[in-house]
């Protein structure tokens, strides 16, 4: 008998729409773990969660532990946190800037009024103000990043004296 093939994505979709017997069949074929591992958005609820998953090296840890007042060093420390969040939340999916049908997402921030609020999203196809390291694979992931990292993003985009 000719056998059909299912991609992982198709299997996940079918699993979520199956009865118990169907679920057991899929678990036998693909392994239970694939259907029980929580999504990255469930597992990462803070910048620290992302850092724990990324396992920074010694150079990065030294920067993450920086507690001085040099404003440019603070900017670099914050940039590292942003890079780590993007790497972890994108789960290894790299942006393809030559693909005009693939939007790359980044949150847009309102900087005025002493406040700091997520004002919008932007998506780019082949050009950017922020580049690969600060882009997200979809709007949902970009939104999650904006929610869990708001305080750290503010200190990346604003200098310390601008934060009220």
């Amino acid at each position, binding site marked *: 008998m000719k056998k059909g093939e299912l991609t992982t994505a198709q299997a996940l979709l079918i699993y979520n729409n199956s009865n118990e017997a169907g679920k057991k069949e899929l678990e036998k074929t693909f392994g239970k773990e694939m259907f029980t591992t929580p999504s990255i958005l469930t597992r990462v609820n803070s910048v620290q969660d992302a850092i724990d998953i990324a396992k920074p090296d010694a150079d990065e840890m030294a920067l993450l532990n920086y507690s001085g007042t040099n404003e440019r060093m603070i900017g*670099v420390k914050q940039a590292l946190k942003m890079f780590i969040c993007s790497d972890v939340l994108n789960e290894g999916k790299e942006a393809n*800037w030559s693909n005009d049908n693939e939007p790359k997402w980044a949150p*847009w921030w*309102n900087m005025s009024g002493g406040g700091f609020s997520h004002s919008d999203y932007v998506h780019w196809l082949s050009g*950017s*103000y922020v*580049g690969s*390291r600060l882009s997200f694979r979809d709007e949902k992931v970009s939104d999650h990043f904006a929610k869990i990292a708001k305080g750290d993003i503010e200190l*990346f985009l604003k200098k310390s004296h601008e934060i009220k």
Partner: protein
Amino acid sequence: MKKQQLDDAVLIQLHSESTAKGKSILEQACGKELFAPKPDEKWKKIITLKSVFAITKPTKEELAILNYKGTNDRMIGLKGAAELFHIVEALNGGKEHNWDNSNEYKYSNYWDMTSGGGFSCSGYGGWLSSSSVGSRLSLISREHAEHMAKHFPTSYKLFMQKKHERK
């Protein structure tokens, strides 16, 4: 010999468009001072990282990042970020942005990321009270933004492109 008087503005223009020899003749004829950059245009002379660091004077801990020679690509991105922070600070000359002033534009550069475009600056954006790059990467004028894109594309490249994207 008949002499022709020229306006200072014309002489300055001629100087900027001349070869080294032409510049030297003009400076001998009119005095070097006429062609020296005005105090508020000194930033135009900032065209290398060396000239940036002469102004911003990186600390020991910053030099460790700026001189990073390892292979961790996030650290390489941070080296690019650190360079950009220094460049912006030097070019802006200590002038801070006021995000509450909706008459004051803040400029940032927009880059073509496609491999076909080969990473090139394709313009700039001017924002009043919102941003995706913030104070640390915004310039105080369109001219400053264009100058930065023209002279420091490598720093943007390190910050914006991952290892497999850089060619």
